[in-house]
């Protein structure tokens, strides 16, 4: 997580296309935050579930770094470098912050039976985990149980955990939901830092201000299909987008 590797940024193109019948296709790059917005029920979380392997796709194509990930299972996709957070946070409640991150860190060991018999609380691992915890601003809460953390910190924990997977692509599902203004701003800063390291980010958000701020490119979904793609200004003035949101209200 230390250097920006320029050649990596250019080469890590993630081509993601959902089933043709639903009509969602787009590409996303490393080092960019791609916003995914749309009215409720548009299928944004479903999209994440398809990408991360929670739902098996029925058709279409999803490829990552040039290889198809369509048939892979969730844990295999995580190990390949696509990490996600959940809309309703799911930390491991009865484990402390450090251990939470350790679980994700362990992805290096789980595939091999022999290696997974080794002890997990070792100094080198703990050091790397501490770096992540520090970056998420949670160092003071390292030994606190996840269930006792306030929501804002739980969200940061989700991101720290996801980062422990050494992802090339990070899927964030409504990270600012339920947060106060300052908390959301801090979280956004963290996301910017993640992007600056060359990691690609797909960001689902309802908070328009956040989206317009963070994203140079936005994809708009409605009823399971992509209805627009472009810069924040283009999206803001797109009549289809406006209708999708307003139309839902009436």
């Amino acid at each position: 997580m230390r250097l920006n590797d320029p050649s990596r940024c250019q080469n890590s193109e993630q081509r993601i296309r959902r089933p043709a019948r639903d009509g969602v296709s787009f590409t996303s790059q490393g080092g960019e935050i791609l916003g995914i917005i749309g009215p409720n029920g548009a299928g944004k979380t479903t999209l994440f579930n398809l990408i991360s392997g929670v739902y098996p796709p029925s058709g279409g194509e999803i490829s990552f770094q040039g290889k198809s990930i369509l048939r892979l299972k969730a844990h295999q996709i995580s190990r390949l470098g696509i990490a996600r957070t959940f809309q309703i946070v799911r930390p491991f409640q009865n484990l402390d912050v450090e251990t939470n991150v350790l679980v994700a860190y362990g992805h290096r060991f789980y595939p091999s039976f022999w290696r997974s018999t080794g002890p997990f609380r070792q100094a080198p691992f703990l050091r790397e985990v501490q770096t992540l915890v520090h970056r998420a601003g949670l160092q003071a809460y390292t030994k606190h149980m996840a269930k006792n953390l306030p929501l804002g910190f739980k969200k940061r924990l989700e991101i720290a955990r996801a980062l422990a997977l050494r992802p090339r692509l990070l899927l964030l599902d409504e990270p600012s939901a339920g947060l106060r203004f300052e908390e959301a701003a801090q979280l956004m800063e963290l996301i910017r830092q993640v992007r600056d390291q060359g990691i690609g980010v797909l960001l689902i958000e309802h908070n328009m201000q956040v989206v317009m701020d963070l994203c140079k490119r936005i994809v708009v979904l409605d009823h399971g299909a992509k209805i627009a793609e472009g810069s924040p200004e283009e999206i803001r003035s797109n009549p289809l987008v406006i209708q999708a949101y307003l139309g839902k209200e009436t």
Partner: protein
Amino acid sequence: MISGYFITILITIGIYAMLAHSLNIITGHAGQISLGHAAFFGIGAYTSAMLYTGAGFPFWISVPLAAVVAGIVGTLLGIPCLRVRDDFLAITTMGINFVVEAIFLYLPFFGGAMGIGGINLPKWFGREMTKPEYFILILVVFVFLLLLDRRVGHSWIGLAWASIREDEEAARAMGVDVVRFKVLAFILGSAIAGLAGGFYAHFLTFIMPQNFGFGQSIVILSMVVFGGIGSRWGPIVGAVILGILPEVSRPIMEYRILIYGILLLGMMRFQPGGLLGPESILPRVFRQSVRRAGARGETQ
């Protein structure tokens, strides 16, 4: 001289502690509901018994083999089991228990309702082991199992199990191959149960299918629940208390099963963590009395 009766109780508790410990791996560590654990106990007992009486294998070979066989069956049954969700798993494990017991009961190969007899204590140094020596053997094996448990608990396997227990979906998203680790828990749990079965067969000298039915699974579950699901010493506490209780007084022996039922019921209802669990009364009462003693000291 230690009375033979006392030693018998000790050995029984030792075997049950091993059994409860093995169930704890599946239910406590990995968080999987298993309501048919007695099936593996039975598979181990029958394997050891038949290898001994049928093929003439000595105890020292038949019992480890019993563990292996139980572990293999645990794997075979575990794989389809673990594709299914919580509730289906509970029913499936119950069903497995029933089917295994029925196989032992109906197939003449296994001796039918009369079971298998003539299984003796192990021989060593040219003579048969005495009961106290057998107990020491069981104790040694059990201590080894506890050490193993500790080692696994500190490993990535143990961490993976903890994450599965907490939130299976999230564990998957964090790179944990949930199915593989669940199967691992099943293998370990069933193998150790099979080991306990081997010890049981050679101690009781005869075994019957009825010993390995759903009722027995409930007894084992009670011990784990009572001591505290997931805690390392919990199963031992459960085995000791529930093992000693019926011996303490005749009336309790009579109503043993009723008491198990009520204990399960009451424990889960009021103290789901068990006696040694995180929110149990015991440590709280202990802490309070220590505090009170300290306060008294101060005011003096």
